[in-house]
């Protein structure tokens, strides 16, 4: 008989995720992923001024802050047919890149690393050997024996205090941990360093958007005016700070994140064959270099890889009412015309209708409705979205940069291409795209500087700020690539008000419950087959779940 295990709360993620698993013979045989919190943001933005909506939907998530604001302003601009000045596009790109780098590093060190790194084992590491290890993989300066010795002492004091704080009751000593003590100590050191670095890179958001989390956006452009001869505007000093932060970010990613990722991965190559799950990968693409309307100019290309076929990229169209649809047959919602047909987001409905067990409960009714997430499908197919999808679509599009970083990493680890379709592949893809993004950000920076040099300081397209000029009815879609994957917002504007607003979010794609045909989404299908050494301490499940970087506030909204 299969044994039911429940993980709730799943921690080191954003939001409230619950997974229920059937385990048999030391392997997961079935899995149910459930989002247990809802706010109804789609209902709340109704009837509001479309120019304000970005602020509401930005608060869908504070971990991937900015991405919903970006999707929102784009949806309004798309509905009304507006272009934004090039400076605004570049500034938005720079904010996008900073967000992605910060989010990925925080995910790797603070949300994911403890699945692979045993903090307690670090106590027994030899600081000199740790220093040697660190210096052998990177030229990062903080790697002396003294540095690691001090850190170890601090860690010892902490553990000896008996108050383990966030490390209390972790899976320390679990059989699935395989790193040598020295790698663990290095991991802990970089855990703390990453914690300090992540607050630096987001200063770029503060410069352009006033604060982080939740910087300001503006329909029609960006609010920060450029004036290189004014104290009160974006001037040489502010731009120099951006440059410094971008340089430091690239250094951190190249000298800390990537070497750590490769070092850790080399001990867990078996995870290149676990957690693959779905075989379809979707990316909307982003980072325009020639205006958002020119999709071919995107650094992240748009498209779909079906059935792991890397020789073809299938096009995707957010406006085609037959492509993307959301289903609710297993979700706590009701559609006015029955619960089995899907709805394109422009026709989307959000009517909360809980039908799960009455709390407190021990188990969900997994054969009925069991989640607050809707279930998105592309032409009826479940899709994985996220860094891996972006890397695969980029790879399949034949872009050289992608081929380069992917081949280099596969070579270093000495694993086949097939290892990409796995838990390890997902985690590695996040690091690899961080490298690309760190370089692109510097390109965008240079483009911004040369624009300003050429006398272009425009940051807002004025024509559309005035609602008097708006058509009585308009529809738009704003697409982007959030750190966790393909994100789009659909808006219907009537009489200058938001008449309908629907978000289909990366974690909605990945974490959703089954569709009416019983097809699993990404989390559920990737968990099937996961080995479980100790059902009481399901560390392996956390590894695969964390490889998606779950965000449930996003997924449900």
């Amino acid at each position, binding site marked *: 008989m299969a044994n039911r295990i429940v993980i709730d709360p799943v921690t080191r993620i954003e939001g409230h995720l619950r997974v229920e698993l059937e385990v048999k013979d030391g392997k997961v045989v079935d899995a149910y992923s459930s989002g247990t919190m809802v706010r109804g943001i789609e209902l709340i933005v109704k009837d509001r001024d479309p120019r304000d909506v970005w602020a509401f939907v930005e608060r869908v998530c504070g971990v991937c802050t900015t991405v919903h604001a970006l999707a929102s302003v784009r949806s309004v601009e798309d509905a009304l047919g507006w272009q934004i000045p090039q400076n605004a596009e570049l500034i938005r790109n720079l904010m996008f890149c900073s967000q992605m780098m910060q989010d990925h590093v925080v995910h790797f060190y603070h949300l994911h690393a403890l699945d692979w790194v045993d903090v307690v084992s670090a106590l027994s590491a030899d600081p000199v050997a740790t220093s040697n290890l660190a210096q052998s993989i990177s030229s990062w300066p903080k790697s002396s024996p003294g540095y690691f010795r001090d850190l170890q002492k601090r860690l010892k004091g902490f553990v000896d205090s008996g108050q383990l704080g966030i490390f209390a009751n972790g899976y320390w000593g679990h059989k699935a941990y395989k790193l040598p003590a020295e790698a663990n100590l290095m991991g802990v050191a970089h855990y703390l360093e990453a914690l300090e670095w992540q607050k630096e890179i987001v200063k770029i958001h503060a410069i352009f958007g006033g604060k982080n989390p939740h910087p300001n956006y503006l329909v029609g452009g960006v609010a920060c005016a450029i004036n290189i001869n004014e104290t009160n505007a974006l001037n040489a000093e502010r731009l120099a700070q951006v440059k410094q932060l971008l340089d430091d970010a690239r250094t951190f990613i190249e000298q800390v994140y990537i070497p750590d990722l490769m070092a850790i991965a080399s001990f867990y190559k078996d995870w290149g064959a676990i957690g693959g799950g779905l075989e379809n990968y979707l990316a909307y693409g982003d980072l325009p270099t020639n205006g958002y309307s020119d999709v071919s100019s995107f650094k992240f290309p748009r498209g779909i890889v079906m059935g792991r076929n890397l020789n073809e990229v299938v096009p995707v169209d957010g406006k085609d009412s037959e492509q993307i649809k959301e289903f609710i047959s297993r979700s706590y919602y009701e559609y006015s015309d029955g619960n089995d047909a899907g709805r394109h987001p422009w026709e989307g409905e959000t009517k909360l209708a809980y039908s799960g067990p009455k709390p407190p409960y021990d188990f969900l009714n997994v054969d009925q409705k069991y989640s607050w997430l809707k279930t998105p499908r592309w032409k009826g197919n479940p899709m994985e979205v996220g860094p891996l999808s972006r890397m695969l679509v980029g790879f399949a599009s034949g872009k050289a940069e992608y081929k380069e970083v992917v081949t280099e990493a596969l070579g270093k680890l000495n694993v086949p291409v097939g290892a990409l379709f796995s838990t390890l592949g997902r985690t590695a893809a996040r690091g690899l795209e961080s490298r690309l993004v760190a370089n692109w950000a510097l390109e965008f920076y240079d483009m911004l500087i040369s624009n300003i040099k050429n006398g272009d300081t425009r*940051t807002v397209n004025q024509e559309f700020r005035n609602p008097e000029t708006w058509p009585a009815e308009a529809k738009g879609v704003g697409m982007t690539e959030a750190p966790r994957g393909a994100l789009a917002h659909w808006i219907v504007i009537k009489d200058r008000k938001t008449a309908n607003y629907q978000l289909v979010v990366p974690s909605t794609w990945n974490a959703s419950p089954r569709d009416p045909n019983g097809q699993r989404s990404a989390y559920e299908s990737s968990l099937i087959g996961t080995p479980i050494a100790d059902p009481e301490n399901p560390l392996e499940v956390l590894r695969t779940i964390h490889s998606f970087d779950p965000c449930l506030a996003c997924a449900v909204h």
Partner: protein
Amino acid sequence: MDETTSSVWEEMKNKGYSRRDFLKFCAWMGAFIGVESTGISSVVRAMETKKRPAVIWLHLQECTCCSESFIRTSHPIVADIILDNISLDYTETLQAAAGHQAEAALAKSMKDNWGEYILLVEGSVPTGEDGVYCCIGGKTAEMRLKEAAEGAKAVIAWGNCASNGCVQAANPNPTTATPIHKIINGKPLIKVPGCPPIGEVMAGVIVHIMAFGTIPQLDGQGRPLAFYSRRVHDTCYRRPNYDAGLFVEEFDDENARKGYCLYKVGCRGPVTYNACGVTKWNEGTSFPIQSGHGCIGCSEADFWDHGPFYQHLASFPGFGIETTADKIGLGLGVATGVGIAAHAVITNISKKDEINEHIETSSVPDGDREGE
């Protein structure tokens, strides 16, 4: 409290700091939380003798931006807070343990530190439909909050969600999202509003409690005066432009490029209490106004329903998104004018006789008289 726990001084000693470093740290800490130099000795005493206080951080109906903001703090940095100053025994965002292991860590900390721990709450509590809109570990947010609050020494409401309900409580509040002060009572409660609050402000509140063992002085709405006693407008560096009458009229216009005041494009600085103008964001890098966008009032209760954000005053509920008091007022004024004109015409017709009478027959009054 557990005997094995150590004071800040012991922590520092273990880390190899000298007594002198420690005293310097206390002086700096004292300056940070604003005590007179004569009060520093009490900080020293507090740091010497206090164990790392147990802290439990609940995550309810939230976007987790408050946690994110907390890890952005630069004085003190967050690693120092959670490794040296407090014992953060439960926080879903960062803790290693999950599921049953996490629940066990929570239960143990509550039991060991009953009556002593500090409860930090991020997110609101949806009370609609018996709380099914937010469940954790099979229990509703309300159940979990009430349980955890019972043994807490003090409660901090992080951000606008816990303090005021925030975005999910905006009209029509589909899940009946409720701020925590309406759920728990009988405990000292500090509201730290903001969407999110500034990281250093969050750290500052914790440092204050830690160093003095008391909660900071609060204003009438339960916010620490140290960070919420001034409006953004009162500490805004664009204020001279406001006083001079130099305003931005549209984003990216000539005046925007000169950094004029953002009042006319909707800045809520004049009605918002927060430390943004002084502490600023992200280690003092900037704040909304400095980056050209008006304050949207993110630390005020119900600010979401006070839009649209790009006009000076909110529009009146029920009158459509662009109707301000002035449009309504002007309408009433015109209506009154029209009404009066009509009245005048009718009067001339219906009271013709009376009027004629007066005009024709009024006679000289018969003597002066004082009307009392």
